[in-house]
């Protein structure tokens, strides 16, 4: 059985026929070749696959593509606008919030959700908000600073 999935991804409408069992993350990576969204586990634990679905952070491995039919997805590839990095992208660069880069897209998307409803989170709030995202490289120290950098920048502008 195939079903038609129609999704707006990073502002562009896509229509594809897929198997209903296809996960959203597989749709993004394999069908649309948007490989910035990563897969790090099979238990919905690591957060590497986090995207924004209708503006809210979602582990895209925990939703079938067909469930997202008609909705709007933003991935890491859609964060920079008109060539300008999103403040979170800038923050991760400025504060050395990434090493191997594998968890980074998921971290940035989760942090984007946080900043959308809490524009100036403290350290504790940032750490809690990122509890669903593993990073094995940074010890989270600089990730926290990266989110703070972005929050400050977004507040200032």
């Amino acid at each position, binding site marked *: *059985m195939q079903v038609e999935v129609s999704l707006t991804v990073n502002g562009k409408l896509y229509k594809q026929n897929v198997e209903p069992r296809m996960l959203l993350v597989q749709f993004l990576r394999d069908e649309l070749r948007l490989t910035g969204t990563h897969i790090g586990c099979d238990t919905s634990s690591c957060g590497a696959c986090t995207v924004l679905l209708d503006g809210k952070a979602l582990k895209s491995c*925990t939703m*079938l593509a067909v469930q997202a039919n008609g909705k709007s997805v933003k991935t890491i590839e859609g964060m920079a606008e008109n060539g300008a990095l999103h403040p979170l992208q800038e923050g991760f660069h400025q504060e050395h919030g990434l090493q191997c880069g594998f968890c980074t897209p998921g971290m940035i998307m*989760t942090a984007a959700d946080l900043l959308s409803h809490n524009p100036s989170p403290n350290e504790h709030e940032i750490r809690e908000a990122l509890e669903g995202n593993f990073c094995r490289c940074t010890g989270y120290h600089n990730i926290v600073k990266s989110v703070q950098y972005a929050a400050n920048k977004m507040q200032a502008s």
Partner: protein
Amino acid sequence: MVPYKVSYHKANSVAEAIELLNKYEDECKIIAGGHSLVPMMKLRLAEPENLIDISGIEELSGITETENFIIIGACATHADIGRSDIIKKHAPMLEQATNKVGDVQVRNFGTIGGNIAHADPAADWPTLLLAANAKIIIQNAEGTREVDADDFFQGLFSTDMEENELITAIYIPKSAANRNSVYRKFPQPASRFALVGCAAAIEVRNGKVANARVAFAGVSATPFRDSGIEKALEGRNFNAESIEAATSNVANGVSVMQDHFANEKYRRHLAGVFAKKALTDLA
């Protein structure tokens, strides 16, 4: 990391969902947020042949109120509940729980209906609904029925539901006890499910406990209310002394789960600690 083959059906109304349920009987599963079901499907621990997607059914979403009840639609997400002013006012423990269920991503899309239908013994909601004296509204082809939370959870991943039924809503009484309620949780450090969670709703009238509902998650294969604690409190002054006495022997007679994070003795002890913390918060 990829489920078995499955067919997908979108239900646009409750009636349509029920029709599909009756059509596919034991070869289908309801999916809403999918945050309990999809992880099981990925690991191939669940292999439904058909999925009936109820996430688009408007009447199942949202949180409303009547004079005596808060009505939580089955498809309300954890985050929806956390943001609701009605919940905040009438059942603070539910709001607290929404910050403790899963993680941000799970809270955004996981639904309360899916959570309780899944009936994981370490999940938070079943316990909260027990403490809240909630009613689960279940619909089938014949109509709707109400089940008290006390009767709904029947065992490990097991509920009072039949295959052809659908949870449509959860009713939370607007009671004095629910207004004075709290949820305290000690998470399993990896999954962040409850190693022990304690939900307590206490009505105090004229300085005495008039009504106590204290329930546990993660302790036993079935979430349960601890009648020992409740009875020990009712009619007493609500203070450190009565709390101490009431929590001295929690989960008495209950078969307590064991795993490598907590053996029976430790888990039982934690249940006591968190019961005490919860009650102390309310006293």
